Structure formats: structure tokens, C-alpha cells
């Protein structure tokens, strides 16, 4: 499973340590030189982003296993390791992290206390990188928990309105969710100890640990309980209905960069956790309980969409749209087939890009107008035509318009989910329509109509702002038209995961299903008028 060769330059550790060193540098920089703080933070995160891009470039796309492995003993008697690696699933989340941090720093600025602000942002980057690369269960948990601290300070220190309440709620909710996860992961290691002959937290060894006679190391009841303890922690992070209540508060009160990172990167910790740890370590329990998560995901889609429609605050609309989008991702994951999982991973990236961009735009509106109340904004199109154009593009990508990135992921998810969970998918599809409703309606109220007073005088985007959001816009279009480079790297990893899951289940596997890439290309070629559901139905027909 592990790629044999390791490369000389420790690329993965430096993805963690470069932001960390940047943080230290920011801390020792004198406060009188405030103008350099942003520069240093930007340089550090950009270098990290560039290294992530290099990682993407040198990634072997045919290999579905873990690459760039770094494995060192850390605490011997507990079997802890400093174990980092990426595969097709985590690769793009690492790249997304590398992309969103420099942009978040570039597009927004704190109004006070610049030094601790940039310090916490860079620490947050180091932590987020660590989460996606750690393959030691405990190391993963350490990073998973440590990101709470910088985010807590970012929301509480530079947020709006009820920032302290939101920060506290965020911290306690997430910590409560993951408390039992720690017990679960320790139990996993100890229950597998007899089968493996030693205590280890190495995920690749814990997955599918069996006694010599073939019985799994963890019995099915224990597997279900431990899976639930993990699932609870991830469900808070995703967040799944009904554990989502921290999200609108945290998103709305957080500063712009905080919202971008929260939506773009931190929510993915949960969905990534489901794939990497839930499905990989507990395949049987994940299959038995898939219906629970499908149901919660679908409820999230519909509930998030309906509540988003009602919101009076533009940022809360985007926040609730995240609940709906993350519901789609969970639906894709628990479809438990190649299309669903590939779509889910792709959609994690897409959601990071489009929701990140939406939060940046809302932040810019707030900077200019000092309000996010939809009722106080109107006719911005006439005063800020370029912003309106950018907003339209990003919004359409979030809705899932064919040709833009949101469509590719959502389509694959629905395609996958329809095969394994038909009725759930039927309900979920309404979410696509509702997404159009709440976003278009919000857009209409904010940008259309007659601009009066302050609204008429609002400044349009500056060139620097346009340039800073340009990479996201480019990706929105590129991934919408040509998602193949992403999908062909995700696919081997997803296939390997599914093979692993069914091997453990030891049931005969159906012949390989047509890969998602081809179906998607087909759907795109059929023309934009053919919507997702038709394609699914025709595909269903072809199977029979």
C-alpha cells in the first residue's frame, strides 16, 4: 500500500513547518513594523502553497496508495508515530489549503491587533495541513484538535457581533464531539493490539487488522460503537444536522479570512475524516449505518436550503448554504460507490473554492457598506458592476450550473447516490433547485433594484482585489469544464478504498462499474440542456 521510495526533501513535514516558522517569525517581529506582518504572513503561506502545488505536480496519478511517506517513531511505548503521507483523496485537500490561505490573507485585513491575527492564521495553516496528511490516528487527532485554538482566537478576537459567544460555542461543540473520538481511537488501537502483536496507531495497519484465522480484530458490536464515536466527532465538524447549530454563528461572526478558512478547509476535516478513518477503518459499520448518514445528509441538504432562504443576513445565507452543500458531500460519501466518493472529494474542493469566494465577496461588501443586512442593500449592480459580475459567476458555481465546478461534483454525487440510495437521492435533488432559489433570490435583492443612498455610492472592486480573487474564478471555470486532472488522481485512491472495504466484507464484488470521469464527460458532451437527472435515468436504463 505504501509507496516504497521516499524522496529526499521532506516535502510533507515542510508543509507543516514552513507556516509554523512563519508564525514564529511573526511573533518575534517588532510590533512597530506592522507593515511587514502581512508581507511575512503572505510570503510564508504562498511558499507553502507553492510547495503544495509542487506536490500536486510530482504526484504519481496512477498510484492509488500513499505517497511521499514520512514515518518516524515518536513515542515508543504507546506506538505513536510521526507518520505523514498523501493519497489521491488527501492530495487535493492539501492543495486547497495551500491555495485558500494566501488568498484569505490577501483579500482581507484585520482592523486591529495585526500581529496575533497573522500569527493565529499561520498556526491554523500548519494545523490544517497536518490533519490532511497524518496517517497515525493519534497524530491526526492532535492536529484535528489543535486547529480549534487558532480558530477560537480568530473568531473571538476579530469577529463581529456576538463573537465571544460564537467562539466559545465553536470550541465547546467541537471539543465535545471529539472527546469520545479519543476514547474510540484508543480503543481501536488496544483492540487491535492482540491481532497485530503490538500497540500501534498506524492507520494503514489498523485498517483490516485480522487474527491469523481471519476474524477481524474488532468485533462487530465494538466496531459499530467505535465508528459512532468517530462519526460523532466528524459530524460536528462537517456539520451534520442536528449538530450544525454552531456553524451559522461561527461563520457569521468570524472575520472574512476566518469564514473563508472555516468553510473552505475546516469543514472538510469532518468529511475527510469520514472517508479516511470512518470508511477505511470500520468498513462493516460504515455500510451498516450508511442509511443514518444518508438520511442526515439529505435532511441537511433540504433543511440548510430552506433556512438559507429565510435569512436576512447575507453572510448567514452563505453559511446555511454550506450546511446544504456539506449534506451533498456526506450523501456522496455514504453512497459507497466510486462515483459518489469521487464526487464527494471533488465537491469538497469545489465547495472550498466557491464558498470561500462567496465569503470574500460578502466581506468586501461589508467593508464598503458596514452592513450585511439584505434589506439595506439594493441595486449594487449599478454602482459596482464588476463585483456583480464576479458574484454572479461564483454564485452560479455554488448553485451547480453546468460548465462551472459545482456541477461536476454534485452530478457525480447524485449519480453515485442514485445507484445505491435511490429515494434519498430523489429528495436530495430538490436541494439543487432550492439552492438556485435562495442564492438567486438573495442576489436579486442585493444587486438588482434601485440603488439609493449609500448603495449608489459603493465603490467597485479595485484592481488588486480583482487580481486576488482571480485564481478562484479561474479554477471555478477550469474545474467546471475540465475536471479530469482532478478526478483521475482521486479515482485510483477511491477504487483502492472501495476494494479494501469489500475485501473486509468478503462478499463477491460486482464487475467494475464505469468510471465517473467518462460518465461526466458524456453528460457534458450531451449538451448543457440535458440536466443531471436525465443522465442518471438514462444511465440506469443502460445498466438494465
Amino acid at each position: 500500500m505504501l509507496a516504497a521510495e521516499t524522496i529526499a526533501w521532506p516535502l510533507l513535514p515542510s508543509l507543516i513547518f514552513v507556516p509554523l516558522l512563519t508564525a514564529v517569525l511573526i511573533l518575534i517581529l517588532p510590533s512597530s513594523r506592522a507593515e511587514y506582518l502581512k508581507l511575512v504572513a503572505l510570503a510564508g503561506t504562498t511558499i507553502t502553497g507553492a510547495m503544495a502545488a509542487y506536490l500536486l505536480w510530482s504526484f504519481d496519478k496512477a498510484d492509488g496508495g500513499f505517497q511521499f511517506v514520512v514515518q518516524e517513531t515518536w513515542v515508543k511505548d504507546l506506538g505513536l508515530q510521526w507518520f505523514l503521507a498523501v493519497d489521491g483523496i488527501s492530495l487535493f485537500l492539501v492543495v486547497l489549503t495551500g491555495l485558500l490561505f494566501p488568498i484569505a490573507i490577501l483579500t482581507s485585513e484585520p482592523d486591529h491587533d495585526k500581529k496575533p491575527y497573522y500569527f493565529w492564521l499561520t498556526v491554523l495553516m500548519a494545523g490544517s495541513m497536518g490533519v490532511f496528511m497524518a496517517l497515525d490516528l493519534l497524530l491526526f487527532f492532535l492536529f484535528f484538535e489543535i486547529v480549534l485554538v487558532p480558530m477560537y482566537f480568530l473568531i473571538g478576537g476579530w469577529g463581529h457581533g456576538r463573537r465571544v459567544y460564537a467562539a466559545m460555542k465553536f470550541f465547546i461543540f467541537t471539543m465535545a464531539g471529539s472527546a469520545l473520538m479519543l476514547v474510540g481511537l484508543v480503543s481501536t488501537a488496544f483492540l487491535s493490539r492482540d491481532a497485530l502483536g503490538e500497540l500501534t496507531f498506524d492507520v494503514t495497519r489498523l485498517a483490516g487488522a485480522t487474527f491469523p484465522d481471519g476474524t477481524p480484530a474488532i468485533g462487530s458490536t465494538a466496531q459499530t460503537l467505535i465508528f459512532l464515536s468517530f462519526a460523532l466527532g466528524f459530524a460536528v465538524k462537517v456539520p451534520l444536522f442536528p449538530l450544525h447549530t454552531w456553524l451559522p454563528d461561527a461563520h457569521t461572526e468570524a472575520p472574512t479570512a476566518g469564514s473563508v478558512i472555516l468553510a473552505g478547509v475546516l469543514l472538510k476535516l469532518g468529511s475527510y475524516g469520514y472517508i479516511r478513518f470512518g470508511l477505511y477503518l470500520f468498513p462493516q459499520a460504515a455500510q451498516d449505518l450508511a442509511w443514518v448518514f444518508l438520511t442526515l445528509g439529505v435532511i441537511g441538504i433540504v433543511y440548510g436550503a430552506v433556512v438559507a432562504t429565510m435569512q436576512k443576513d447575507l453572510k448567514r445565507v452563505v453559511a446555511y448554504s454550506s450546511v446544504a452543500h456539506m449534506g451533498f458531500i456526506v450523501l456522496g460519501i455514504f453512497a459507497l460507490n466510486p462515483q459518489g466518493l469521487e464526487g464527494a472529494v471533488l465537491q469538497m474542493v469545489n465547495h472550498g473554492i466557491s464558498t470561500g469566494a462567496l465569503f470574500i465577496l460578502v466581506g468586501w461588501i461589508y467593508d464598503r457598506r458596514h452592513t450585511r443586512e439584505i434589506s439595506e442593500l439594493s441595486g449594487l449592480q449599478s454602482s459596482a458592476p464588476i463585483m456583480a459580475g464576479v458574484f454572479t459567476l461564483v454564485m452560479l458555481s455554488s448553485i451547480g450550473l453546468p460548465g462551472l465546478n459545482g456541477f461536476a461534483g454534485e452530478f457525480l454525487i447524485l449519480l453515485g447516490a442514485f445507484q445505491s440510495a435511490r429515494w434519498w437521492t430523489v429528495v436530495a435533488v430538490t436541494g439543487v433547485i432550492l439552492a438556485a432559489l435562495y442564492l438567486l433570490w438573495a442576489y436579486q435583492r442585493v444587486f438588482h433594484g434601485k440603488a439609493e443612498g449609500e448603495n449608489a455610492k459603493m465603490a467597485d472592486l479595485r484592481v488588486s482585489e480583482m487580481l486576488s480573487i482571480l485564481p478562484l474564478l479561474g479554477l471555478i471555470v477550469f474545474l467546471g469544464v475540465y475536471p479530469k486532472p482532478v478526478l483521475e488522481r482521486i479515482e485510483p485512491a477511491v477504487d483502492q478504498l472501495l476494494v479494501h472495504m469489500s475485501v473486509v466484507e468478503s462478499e463477491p464484488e460486482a464487475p467494475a462499474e464505469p468510471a465517473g470521469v467518462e460518465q461526466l464527460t458524456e453528460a457534458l458532451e450531451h449538451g448543457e440542456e440535458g440536466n443531471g437527472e436525465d443522465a442518471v435515468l438514462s444511465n440506469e436504463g443502460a445498466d438494465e
Partner: protein
Amino acid sequence: MTLQFAQVQTPDIEWSLIWPFVILSLAGVLLITITSLIPRTRTGAFSATFTAVSAIIAAGFLPWIADRVNEQGAIGGRREFYVLSNAIVVDNFTIFITGIICCSVVLVAFLLDDYLRREGLEGPEWYALILLSASGGVLLASAEDLIVSFVGLEILSIAVYVLAALHLRRSQSQEAGFKYFVLGALSSAIFLYGIALVYGATGSTTLNGINRSLFQPGVNGQVPAESSSLLLVGIGFLLVGFAFKVSAVPFHVWTPDVYQGAPSPVVAFMASAVKVAAFGGFLRVFLYAFGDLSNEWLPIVAALAVMSLVVGSFLAVVQSEIKRMMAYSSITHAGFMLVGLHSAALDEGTDILGSKSILFYLFTYAAMIIGTFAVITVMGRVGDGSHDVDSYRGLAKSEPLLAGLFAVLLFAQAGVPFTSGFFAKFRIIAAAASDDDYWLAAVAMLASVVGAYLYLRVVVAMVFSEPADTDSDADSGPAYGPIDIPPAALTVLVISVVVTVVFGIFPDLGGGFLDNAAATLTLLRP
């Protein structure tokens, strides 16, 4: 008729092995003697230096003693020495506990010097009492005889009762000392009664003797003897005595009042050295003497642990005074340590996870809590009275360094990753899981989440709130005096934070010491 002079039999004492204990107690007496000869006004700095140096010298013998203990192990003997005619046992566990106690004494002496100067208090008696109390703690942890345990416990406690009441100008301090004394004396009486009952049941007061009496000759060697109800009641009484000292629920009621009233540096000493010594005695007596009866008393320890975790964490949240908060949080921590003790009693053979977990917890908790109380001492300001959470508001703006270091310690107590607090909790959880006590681990983790709220409240006050005394009007509450951060207190704080962070990143550091001490508790059980 020739007069026969009977040769008086004196025990053959290897003094070199008990130097740390001897030095600590002698230093206490010597300090009083020396300072009674020089003018009172000049004793401050001298006493503090004397205390710190004595504790450092006492600790300096430890590596040498450890070498001797392990040499004996290397040639096939048991890694322990019995001195003072089997009254004291010197082994790696004794060394570990003594080391923590000595370090605590050094750090507390640093804190105390500035504190006394700020409060306008005088006297070497503070230092002498701390040295004596520490010597009692060492005696308690190394006692091989229950009578010696009791003597150690009393030396440890009585000195602390006095210390708690020693801030003569604060009535709260007097009250705390009195409460502590009355309840402590009661628990000592119960402890002593327990010793008497155990002696009645087993005919011995030595830990080895008690342990031997638990077995009787059977067909295939020794088999467990019938345990008498007399013995069980005695064990129960001893358990109550220790539960009181480590402030486990429901024997915790003294803790909040005493923590609140006692002078802050004294609380630092109580929370570190006294707690470590009490747990040291607890482990020694219960694992050595009653380890083979663990079926009988482990359920009680589990119940004490669960109650301490739940009650401590929930009551901590509703406090508004930081010293009371820390008192309840120390109860929660005691709950964690009891979970560790529970798994230590279940350790067998080469599995020493349980013993390691509690020893690691004791060490890291002592380091964290001394730093925490260093901040509380400084923030108490003149009079040692402003311990309201509100008095911490806006600290990050006015004293960023102090607030930053304090925040690290608070997060460490909450168990945030990359601090020693996380690994302390993790080891406890792992040890509980290795004994299949998953429910105990789950309760402990849930309690720690509730407890986290408390630490966050202090962080919120420091970082996210405006200073309370900026709007100086009377309706905004009391104004707080200026903060004066003495270099010694800052040094203590920095040491505490460095230890906390370094052991959070390299939890294996100095693992040999820990392994040896933990192995003593498991493998060398009689």
C-alpha cells in the same frame, strides 16, 4: 561478679540512601535556628535561597541513589533498599516522587520571596514549614510501615495547616487554616483508626507483612486467605484518609475554601507537592499492601474517580473566583489521577501503562499548576485579594507576555494537543482502555470537555474583554491595583510553560525515569 554491659542494638542505617529526606527536615530546623540568630529584617532573601539550595542539594542526591538502586537491579537483586529497620523503602518510585517534591519546593520558594515582600510579611517560618512539609511528603511516599506513613502524613499536613493560616492580615487565611485543620485532623483520625483495624486483622503494620498475611499456605503454595471484614473496614478507612488528602469527591469539601483562603504560593505548594506526596502514599500503601485485594477496593476507587470528575468539572464552571475554579479543577484532575490509579492497580507483568499514566500525570500536573499559581500570585496584587475572574479582563493588552504564558497553561490543563496536559490525559485514557474500562475513559473525557469551558472563561476574560478599570466609575465594579511582575515569578512561570510545552511535543523525554518508577509499582509489588 563482673558487670556486664549489654550492647545496645542499634539498627544499621544506610544514611546515604535517605539523604534527601534528612536534608529537607534538617534544613527546616536549621533555618529556624540560623534566622533566630540574625536580625529579622534581613532574613527574606536568605531564607528563600537557603530553602531553594537545600531542595536542590536534596534532589542532587537522587541520580546517585538511582544508580545504586539500579546497580543492585543489574546484579539480579530487587531494585529496592530497606532502611531504618524496614521503616523506609528506597526504590525508583521513592526517587521519582522525591524529585517532584524537591522541584516544587524550589519553585515555590522563588514565588514566596516576592510574595512575602509584597505583602509586607516576615519570617523564615514560611520556608521552614515548607521544608518540613516536603520532608513529610517524602517520608509518606517511601514509608514501608503504616505507622511511618502516618507520621509522614502528619508532618506533611500539619505544616500545611499552619502555612494556610499564615497570612496574618487576612481573616480568610485564618479561616482556611482552621477549616483545613479541623477536617484534616478528622481524616487523620480515620486514617489512624484504619491502621489499627488493619493491624488487628493482619497482625502487622508493615506493607510487606500485611501483604504476606493476605495469603495462607495451601496445596499448591500460597493461596489467597479469606479476607476478614475487619481488614476490609480498615482498608476503607485508609481509603477515606487518602481520598481526603487528594481531595476526591465526596471528601473534597475543604478544597475550595482552603484554596480560596490560603496564601497563593502556599496553594501552589499544596496543589503540587502535597498532592504528589499524597498520591505517592496512596499508591504505595494500596498497591503494595492491598494490591492483591484490588477486587475489593477498586470499585470504590472507580466511584470516587467518577464522582470527582463529574462534580469537579460541573462545579468549576459556576465559580467566579479563580482560586475556587482552580480548586474544583484540581478535583477534576484528582479524578483523572484516580482513573490512573485504578489502571495502575490492574497492571500486571510487563504492562506498566497504568502506573506510567498516573506518574506522568502527577509530574505534568505539578509543573502546570505551579505556573498557574505563579500567575495567580502575581494577579492577586497587594493584599492577595483580587482573584475575581473580572480582574483578569484585558490582561492580554496590558501584560501580553503574562497573559500568553497563562493561556498556554490553561489550555494545557484543558488538555489541548501539543501540551503535556494532552499526553497526561491521553496516557490515562489509554491505560483505562488497555484494561477494557472504556466507560471510565469516556466519563473522564466528557468531564474534561465540561472543564474546558472553565479555562476558556479565563481566556475570554484575558483576551477578548476590555479591562474592567478603564471606565473608572463606581458602577463598573472595583478597580484593581497595578500588577507588579517580579522576575522570580516570571522565571517560575517560564520554567513551568517550557516543561509543559516540551513534554507536550516530546512526551518520551526522560522516559527511563518514568519507566523505572512505574516498573517499581508493578513488577516489584511484594
